[in-house]
């Protein structure tokens, strides 16, 4: 797996005495869509937070683009080309749509190209353009998810992490969000997406991992996972 752009090797992480991740290994190859499935409290968010240095790994290595990143600060990691659409969007609610998109590009100073990327976001999500001056806090749930994705895109990441992008959205919007993720991937961004909505995630993913109480219990191609008899009831409880 030397062609992986992002690798977690035997990573563990804890919140005080609570072990949230126990010796997990994940590889994401350049150009892929990889999903991490698991029920509530399995440790999905912790995995993404650990990759980004928001929670410290207490064992293991995280390698991004050939270099170890597990000791770096979040801004240092982000500056190397990783970013995330966080759980519950977490936009800057008092800032305008435009400012949220601009702040996504905070580490860049190529003004013209930032503008280009903002336009690209508007072409993915035309509704955001209509609301460009509106405060992010006043957008609808779907629009907020679009803006959260847009804000991550203006950072121009090599790998985009998404934490439950379907959460709290109506089914039509969920489909739309996943189509957009696929389109972003086809334009050259590697995707690592965390979901409880396994069917939806696997329908666009190349490969998937299943996380259960902090351990990887299953990994396979998306096609095989969709067929997997144990996937629905054993590991994901709430899946249809």
């Amino acid at each position, binding site marked *: 797996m030397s062609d992986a752009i992002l690798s977690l090797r035997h990573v563990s992480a804890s919140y005080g005495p609570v072990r949230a991740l126990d010796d997990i290994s994940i590889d994401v190859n350049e150009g892929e869509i990889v999903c991490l499935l698991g029920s509530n409290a399995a440790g999905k968010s912790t995995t993404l937070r650990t990759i980004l240095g928001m929670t410290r790994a207490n064992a293991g290595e995280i390698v991004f683009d050939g270099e170890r990143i597990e000791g770096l600060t*979040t801004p240092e990691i982000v500056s190397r080309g990783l970013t995330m659409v966080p759980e519950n969007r977490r936009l800057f609610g008092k800032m305008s749509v435009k400012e949220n998109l601009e702040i996504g590009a905070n*580490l860049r100073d190529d003004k013209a190209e930032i503008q280009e990327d903002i336009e690209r976001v508007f072409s993915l999500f035309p509704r955001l353009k209509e609301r460009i001056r509106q405060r992010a806090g006043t957008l609808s749930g779907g629009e907020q998810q679009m803006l959260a994705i847009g804000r991550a895109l203006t950072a121009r990441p090599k790998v985009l992490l998404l934490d439950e992008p379907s959460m709290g959205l109506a089914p039509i919007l969920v489909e739309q969000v996943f189509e957009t993720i696929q389109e972003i991937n086809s334009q050259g961004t590697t995707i690592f997406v965390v979901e409880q909505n396994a069917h939806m995630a696997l329908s666009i993913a190349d490969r998937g991992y299943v996380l259960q109480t902090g351990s990887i219990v299953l990994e396979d191609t998306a096609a095989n996972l969709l067929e997997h008899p144990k996937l629905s009831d054993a590991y994901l409880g709430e899946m249809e």
Partner: protein
Amino acid sequence: MSAPAPAPAEQSSRRLRFERIPMRRIILIVLSVSIIYGVVAGSTATLRTGVFTAEDWQSLFINGLARGSVYALIAIGYTLVYGILFMINFAHGEVFMAGVYTAYFVAVAFAGNGFLNSNPLLSIAILLLVSMAVSVFIAVLLERLAYRPLRGAPRLVPLITAIGASFFLQYTFRGFYGANVRAYPTIEILQGKWTIFGIQMLKTQAIVIVAALFLWFLLYLFVARTKTGRSMRAVGEDREIASLMGINVDRTIVATFAIGGALAGAAGILYVFLFNQVIFTMGFLPGIKAFTAAVLGGIGSITGAAMGGLILGILEAVGPNLFLTGAEVPSPNQLQPVIAFGILVLVLIFLPGGFLGASEEKRA
């Protein structure tokens, strides 16, 4: 036997609660009615005596506007730090004192060799620079040494530290600079009066008001338009996501303290334009009044802090004379702090979010 037992206890506690809520309301209503009555009755009595002419009221108003401008600049320091760290930097008054008191020695040196009045504008610029630089230095030092190690601690801990730091700074400067009141050297071009829009005012008052307005406007643009200003707003809203945007949170917090310090340093020079003296305790009252102004405007809001400062200054200058002279209170201006702190208490009771209500929004 055992089943009905809890009923009476429940009933009595319920009755207690029912009684407590209206009681509190009644006290509040009585309080506000008597304050309004006092203010109205006092004011009518005062106006009826005719002790003060229209010009007197004008000049009191200008006086209030000028001192309020100083409060406003200091208040912005409280509000900026609160907006990003949700803590009250109670040592901010000392940040204000440190700058202007240090600049005092420069002013004395300039006065001694005649430079102060041969090159007054350059002198003022240098005094401003010295005062702002020292205040920035003290503010940043405070953040680095006193507050940063306590970032994760419960809210009460940095608050108590801030109070301790305030005394530490006061007595450190007392050690260095002495315990006396010292008169700031007079700058001749600032003496005298101007008539602006038909209103006579001291030159210093006009300069203070205009300078404060200018600085407030610069700050407003800075926060709204620059990258650092945007980072400050982002860290205030969501520190973790700010760092996900690549923002260096520590550096942004330092910048916030530095900007608050710079404004306090400038406020110090404006303060001595009005009051002409320095002493190691001089940060205390203006500091707490500025804090009141920040709370009045809604702590966390920059515009609120500026408005709060002006309103407090005007009430403090006009209020005692207007409300109390008619009530035959001797030397009402001695009671200015009563007005300031009366307002603080009333705002906390009736309008805990301030009139721009930023703090509630922030906390949510």
